[in-house]
């Protein structure tokens, strides 16, 4: 049989026509998938198996049914399956936790049961836990008190109501879009941390893409939470004694979308991102949204510059003093980091009368406390 005549072969395997140009390399579809998977697996190298007698690491993987976390699940599952097929050692097991998207945001109501079932069928090797957002009252019971303290007079916690109604009342007490998004993220993190502890996991694997991490870093800075970047954006020890890892940190959102489009098995599972609405006034956006849009628009022209933001944040060292007092709500540092002699906090003395919440959380507090 004559050799295949290829017009422009894939630069990796040289055995197929190239389909995708990624970072100035022309690859075929399967080499592209391998390229993306490699970027993730390389990040997971610290959980490599060391020996037969070593227990496997237990990791928690929160899945939102968005593109990024679904792709992460797919890559890790594929890698694990291949190892098992080749009778190689597996270094870790992961539990998948799903906080029911319909209880987090109103936009994702329909057909979620079906998607969840489909995901369970597609990835049968793993354990799945599905909880509603308002189960935070059951699984992180300390939050009840903290939320009451935090919202102050704006939130009357009526314990005779259902958890769902109580959480809705709390969320409604927070006035601006920025603060709502900020507090929602904190509550979700706390719910997931509660499960990580329950399952005795060593780490949580967050499915944030590089673009997302850049937006998170910029938004964190803009919300006065710069000191928390060491675990909200960098890989590192969180205040709860769990490692937070971001294995997708080397991949842009666009590259994950590309990967997803090559996996037909994911197409019915993933809830596609909603296109950002054009006619929203800037001042009505949340800071998180603004930064996401900023990173998206700038990332189209300068993907490397945006990627560099997350990389820069990843170089920060977490504060050395672990004994420092932390915020009751977000577990961030109270006051300044060690070595910071700035007086931003003193300047806003009235804002900080309550010493149990950090600077960033005080900014998102329901009442205008200034």
């Amino acid at each position, binding site marked *: 049989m004559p050799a295949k005549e290829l017009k422009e072969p894939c630069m990796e395997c040289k055995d197929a026509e190239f389909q995708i140009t990624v970072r100035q390399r022309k690859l075929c579809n399967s080499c592209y998938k391998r390229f993306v998977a490699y970027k993730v697996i390389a990040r997971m190298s610290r959980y490599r198996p060391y020996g037969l007698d070593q227990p496997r690491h237990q990791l928690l993987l929160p899945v939102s049914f968005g593109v990024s976390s679904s792709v992460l699940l797919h890559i890790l599952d594929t890698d694990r399956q291949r190892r098992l097929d080749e009778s190689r050692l597996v270094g870790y097991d992961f539990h998948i936790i799903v906080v029911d998207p319909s209880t987090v945001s109103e936009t994702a109501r329909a057909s979620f049961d079906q998607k969840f079932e489909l995901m369970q069928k597609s990835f049968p090797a793993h354990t799945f836990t599905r909880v509603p957002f308002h189960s935070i009252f059951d699984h992180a019971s300390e939050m009840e008190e903290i939320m009451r303290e935090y919202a102050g007079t704006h939130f009357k916690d009526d314990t005779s109501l259902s958890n769902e109604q109580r959480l809705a009342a709390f969320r409604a007490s927070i006035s601006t879009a920025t603060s709502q998004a900020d507090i929602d993220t904190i509550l979700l993190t706390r719910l997931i941390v509660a499960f990580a502890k329950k399952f005795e996991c060593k780490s949580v694997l967050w499915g944030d893409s590089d673009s997302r991490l850049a937006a998170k870093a910029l938004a964190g800075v803009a919300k006065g939470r710069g000191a928390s970047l060491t675990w909200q954006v960098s890989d590192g020890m969180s205040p709860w004694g769990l490692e937070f890892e971001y294995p997708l940190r080397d991949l842009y959102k666009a590259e994950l979308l590309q990967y997803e489009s090559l996996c037909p098995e994911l197409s019915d599972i993933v809830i596609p991102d909603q296109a950002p609405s054009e006619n929203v006034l800037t001042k009505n956006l949340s800071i998180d949204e603004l930064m996401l849009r900023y990173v998206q628009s700038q990332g189209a022209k300068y993907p490397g510059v945006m990627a560099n933001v997350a990389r820069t944040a990843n170089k920060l060292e977490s504060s050395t003093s672990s004994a420092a007092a932390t915020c009751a709500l977000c577990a961030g540092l109270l006051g300044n980091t060690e070595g910071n002699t700035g007086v931003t906090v*003193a300047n806003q003395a009235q804002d900080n009368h309550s010493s149990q919440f950090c600077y960033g959380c005080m900014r998102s507090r329901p009442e205008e406390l200034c």
Partner: protein
Amino acid sequence: MAPTLCFNCKEARAVIIRPKNRHKLCRACFIEVFETEVHETIIGTNLFFRGERIAIGASGGKDSTVLAAVMKTLNERYDYGLELCLLSIDEGIRGYRDDSLETVKRNAKQYDMPLVIVGYGELYGWTMDQVVEQVGKKGNCTYCGVFRRQALDRGATRLKINHVVTGHNADDVAETVMMNLLRGDLPRLSRGTSIVTDSGASDVKRSKPLKYAYEKEIVLYAHHRQLDYFSTECIYSPEAFRGSARTLIKDLEKIRPSSILDIVKSGEDMAALVPAEVRGTTKSKKSGAAEDEPSGGCGSQNGRTSVGEMAAMEQQLSANEVAESNETEIKLPAAQPKAKSQPTKVLKAQTIKHCERCNYISSQRICKACLLLDGLNRNRPKTAIEVGIEDEEGSSTLMRQMERAHLSAT
């Protein structure tokens, strides 16, 4: 409808909505609150000591005019015991600087402070007008920025003053934080927010007492105290880009007015988290104020980047990546596990040296100003050169001009 009463005194009619927190205040309360906040900044950071001589870097613009007015007021009200004077740099831009210098001269009279003007012409042998004639309008801000930083230090040294205060405001600091994050510039991230920057080279330290004051409030303050300031932008800068960071911060301020202050707070915290080995210098020998401000910008442009700069960085980053992926291909397999077992990356550190020619602080062998002067002098038309100095190096020109420079105290 009844007029809204002042949030503070509850007596007078509110005429101002504070940009920082949207409080409605009367004129007197706003002025008092603004001054008190600057006072708290000064006290909270132990900025000055009694009897210290302070030079106020004055450009005639709103920031430095407000700074001079507030410093004078506070010095009298709280009895700091400071000896204040104004220090101006004359870049030699006709139609811009000569007018703003008139403003500074009036300010000197109004505030009863001595004024010293140092010119680029006498320091470097080149006015900005001459530089622009030579290099064109594009890129001339680089020269101006580099020259100005040294000029302030040199001017202060002449006056035997080792503390210069500048009018940098919270917006400037916030911009710098965002810029440095976007540029991945950790050394600058670690020192850009600090209120005082010591110089290792000269004994001149810089500080920014208005670091927590919003630009909008500075304008309001200037307006309500009817200060005399000069508000035209530098005539060479109108085409300068309003960079990414600037736009971003304006948007953030619309969403949450406290954002600017929040960014400053984040910047201060992150500065303390920058690994010691990339900070550039240790505490005892801090890098100079001279190196602190991003190069290539005048006051109105400080911390902003041009799109060209971003594109250049993008190109470099993607080239790095290509180089990296090429590198893995030829790497020896044995070398890989070793590289992986290394937990932390080795980060490139900055070291601070002194310029071999003018002895000014520099991270290179020869400082930026001397390099730029070299370029300028090389291309200077022979006819424009005075007899006898053709063969002189840029640095000796500089030295000679420095010797000749005299300070005209007005």
